């Protein structure tokens, strides 16, 4: 086991602390009564978690493809349940994404959540624990515990603090992802039966017969395709996004969807390499369909959250496309695209949350012509929308371009079929921007806002909102001009993965 691990955290169990800190913080939450103090506590815990995670970036050994900051403990020796955690170049960016976004999730709910605040913060912190847990686990047992552990808090986020159709959305979310998880569980049990171990890196070095590989691949792929979500398993996503509170949408879009892509990279590709290669054409076709259909559906939406939700389907199509091209550029582009989507789409949902707090509507018809009334807000919205359709200089461009270049290098036809997705992305994002910023506003009489009954008092974003959005803007441009920050980390791990698959 130890040969796959690198114990470079100098005996401090940093990853376990990252997982347990929010959990401990969550329990303390239940004893706090004062609302402001609750929110501050939530901020403190998530910020501490973030602060603890940042050194990982600097201490990470970029030349090694091993699982770093590893911890290995015996847990239930009789059942060979071990506790093993570690991060490699694929999971580290996602861990950092999670820890950096959580403080912003708390901040963006500052005024939005009025009832059951203690429970809300509690659920968010549990959620954070589970999400970090999924990315750092190295045994299937704890992976599955965390994987399922995310389901309940997310269900609660939608079902308790959601919009009017929250019951429908939360049940749909639960049923879809749970159905996927069952398939995953089957695959994990089969793996244990066949190999006698729960340790994920071990699976990589065992050769399974092709038939077994196919079953494992199909089971895992269903679970992850629902999670990511891939067309035609995507229908839970718009419902869940629309009804979830802002923080819920941000977590859902920025982190939860990434679990699907992460799953493909951690399970499908290394454990069932032959099956992955065999099924790649199917997945590529499904990705292309997702890119185009997702974009096409987004073009017709009048609910902003739904629009972004469908755009996520298209963006995630680029991720699966990149992964199944089996080239350095494609896989690295896909991981970068996951990080980018986390930042940009998270930011867009925060933007929508901000306007929802003011107009209590997500309809384009109501939230139109904001350009004159909320210039700062519109500036941020513009930057994030540009990033979402891959404007050069923003983070969105690099990921999309890498996947496209990999697609063209692989097969001209695949590349050509992905292009309509890029065109549609520009179309639906610019349509949204046009409506929200300009619509048909008459510039000469812009003091009067007649959208949605005309009774809203629209104030531009306040200092708290400035702060949230500025942080995200920094990342948009930073990764847009220096994607090496993330790409260099994943280099060794992706190379190792591709060598293992043998392409």
């Amino acid at each position, binding site marked *: 086991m130890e040969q796959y691990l690198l114990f470079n955290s100098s005996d401090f169990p940093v990853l376990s602390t990252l997982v347990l800190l929010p959990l401990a913080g969550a329990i303390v939450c239940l004893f706090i009564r004062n609302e402001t103090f609750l929110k501050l506590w939530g901020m403190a815990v998530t910020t501490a978690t973030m602060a603890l995670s940042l050194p990982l970036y600097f201490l990470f050994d970029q030349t090694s493809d091993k699982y770093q900051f590893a911890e290995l403990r015996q847990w239930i020796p009789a059942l060979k349940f071990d506790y093993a955690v570690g991060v490699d170049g694929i999971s580290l960016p996602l861990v950092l994404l999670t820890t950096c976004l959580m403080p912003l999730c708390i901040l963006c709910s500052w005024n939005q959540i009025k009832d059951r605040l203690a429970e809300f913060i509690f659920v968010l912190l549990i959620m954070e624990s589970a999400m970090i847990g999924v990315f750092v686990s190295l045994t299937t047992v704890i992976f599955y515990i965390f994987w399922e552990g995310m389901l309940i808090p997310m269900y609660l986020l939608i079902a308790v603090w959601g919009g009017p159709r929250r019951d429908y959305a939360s049940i749909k979310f639960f049923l879809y992802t749970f159905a996927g998880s069952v398939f995953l569980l089957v695959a994990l049990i089969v793996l244990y039966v066949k190999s006698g171990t729960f340790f994920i890196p071990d699976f990589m070095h065992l050769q399974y017969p092709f038939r077994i590989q196919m079953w494992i691949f199909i089971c895992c792929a269903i679970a992850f395709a629902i999670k990511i979500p891939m067309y035609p398993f995507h229908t839970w996503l718009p419902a869940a996004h629309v009804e979830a509170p802002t923080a819920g949408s941000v977590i859902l879009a920025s982190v939860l969807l990434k679990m699907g892509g992460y799953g493909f990279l951690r399970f499908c590709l290394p454990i069932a390499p032959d099956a992955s290669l065999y099924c790649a054409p199917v997945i590529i076709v499904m990705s292309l369909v997702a890119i185009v259909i997702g974009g096409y559906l987004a073009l017709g939406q009048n609910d902003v959250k739904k629009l972004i939700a469908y755009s996520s389907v298209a963006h995630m199509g680029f991720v699966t496309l990149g992964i199944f091209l089996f080239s350095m550029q494609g896989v690295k582009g896909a991981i970068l695209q996951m990080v980018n989507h986390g930042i940009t789409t998270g930011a867009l949902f925060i933007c929508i949350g901000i306007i929802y707090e003011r107009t209590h509507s997500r309809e384009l018809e109501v939230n139109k012509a904001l350009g004159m009334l909320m210039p700062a807000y519109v500036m941020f919205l513009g930057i994030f929308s*540009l990033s979402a*359709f891959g*404007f*050069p*200089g923003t983070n969105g461009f*690099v990921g999309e*371009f*890498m996947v*496209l*270049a990999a*697609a*063209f*290098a692989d097969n*001209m036809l695949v*590349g*050509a079929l992905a*292009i*309509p997705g*890029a*065109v549609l*992305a*520009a*179309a639906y994002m*610019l349509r949204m921007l*046009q409506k929200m910023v*300009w619509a*048909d*506003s*008459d*510039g*000469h009489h812009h003091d009067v806002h007649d959208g949605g009954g005309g009774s809203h008092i629209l104030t531009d974003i306040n200092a708290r909102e400035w702060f949230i959005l500025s942080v995200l803007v920094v990342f948009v441009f930073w990764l847009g*001009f*220096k*994607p*090496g920050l993330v*790409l260099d980390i994943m280099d060794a791990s992706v190379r190792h993965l591709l060598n293992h698959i043998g392409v």
Partner: protein
Amino acid sequence: MDVANLQLLLPPAVPMLAAVLVGLLRKKPAMRDCVPVIGAVLTFLSVASLAPAVLAGVICRATLCTLLPGISVSFRIDGMGLLFAGTASFLWIAASLYCIGYMRTLREHAQTRFYVCYAVAVGGAMGVALSENLFTLYLFYEIVSIFTYPLVAHHQDGKAYDGARKYLTYLMFASKALLLPAMAIIYCQCGTLDFNMTDIRWGIFPAGVDAWLVRVCYYFMLFGFAKAAIMPLHSWLPAAMVAPTPVSALLHAVVVVKVGVFSVCRMMLSLFGTERLAALDLGITTAWIAAFTILTASVIAMTKTDLKARLAYSTVSQLSYIVLGVAMLVPSGVTGGLIHIANHAFAKISLFFCAGAIICATGKTDIRDMGGIARQMPVTLAAFALAALSMIGVPPVGGFVSKWYLAVGALDIKSTGLLAVILVSSILNAYYFGEVVLRGFFGTPPAGADPAAGSLEATALMKLMIYPTAAAAGLSVLWGMYPDLFLKIIRLKLG
């Protein structure tokens, strides 16, 4: 990065900083309006200060950051870039003065937004002119697209929104559907997006690359740079005429469209190379596509009675002269094309300035209403006539030099067809510009018009518009008589 080369960052950076400053001074209109003027002067000086080094053959380059291997944000100046950046930044000085007169006379709303976007668009053009690779060029190209949308939609009425939507749809569709895949393919094939700035013959493609792939990439880029308004992707340009006239003047006659044409020229000379284009027969096909655009747009221009629409179609036609010249792939043709970047800029900006001055003074946009207007606006109409002569290609005005080289180029490649196109289009130019000039000077003035000579050019704000107009038209003549500066810069590029 070499410290001396930080200078290269100034031309794109100064207009952007000016834009920020304009935004900060939004509460103080007087100071705000001065900023673009100062910014324009500084931008021009920063470009001019690079000229000696370029003329001496010193390589100036600066890299800001590297995104991926072979893709970076980096700048480098050569003769072509100097020509375009110098022309655009110089004309920005004239336009920034003109803007004050125009915007104040018509009491336009949202002037801060206007000036901010205007400056950023110019900064974007500077970036395009100085970019060392396709990514940098694309980056600034798209910045220009996005920041000109608010300028086109400026009036915020139904017509403005329709025009702006058409504008952005065309530009974005072309860049996403055509440019992006071409860029991705080139990156796959060559492993880099850096231009070959030293040799215009072979471009950057490695030997043995599939000829059909090169052809596809080439056509995708030719039409992908929709700002060059090559037919059939031209109709955004007339639609963009809903913008205030200073926008039509500087942006849709100089900055935006020249960004497109410049990108096309850069792509032909520094990505594909003249020898490769000739070997694949791409040069001559492009020349005929351009020739078709020249004639068709000229014919359409004759049918338009709205002055700005007529000028817009004239621009479509004139831009294709530049493409035509470069597509001839012989030194005289390329010279004629590139020098037309400058000559067309000076002449067309004067023409639009005149149109704007007439709108400000009388509110008239239709040519048929402009009878006898020269009596009240003599300087304006004189400038119009001079600039029109340049467009027609009459010596000694600038346009003549371009057309001379173009005609020589056509003879060099032994294409009487292209020579005929150049001659026929000149006749068409003469017709549709001649009509305006004739009506202006000799038409019957409407009843009740103030008969006093120059009465409409008397106010201070009008003077702020008339002087830049006259200056630009005057310079057009100067460049016609002394084209040596431009020719020297271009020869540098041709080697």
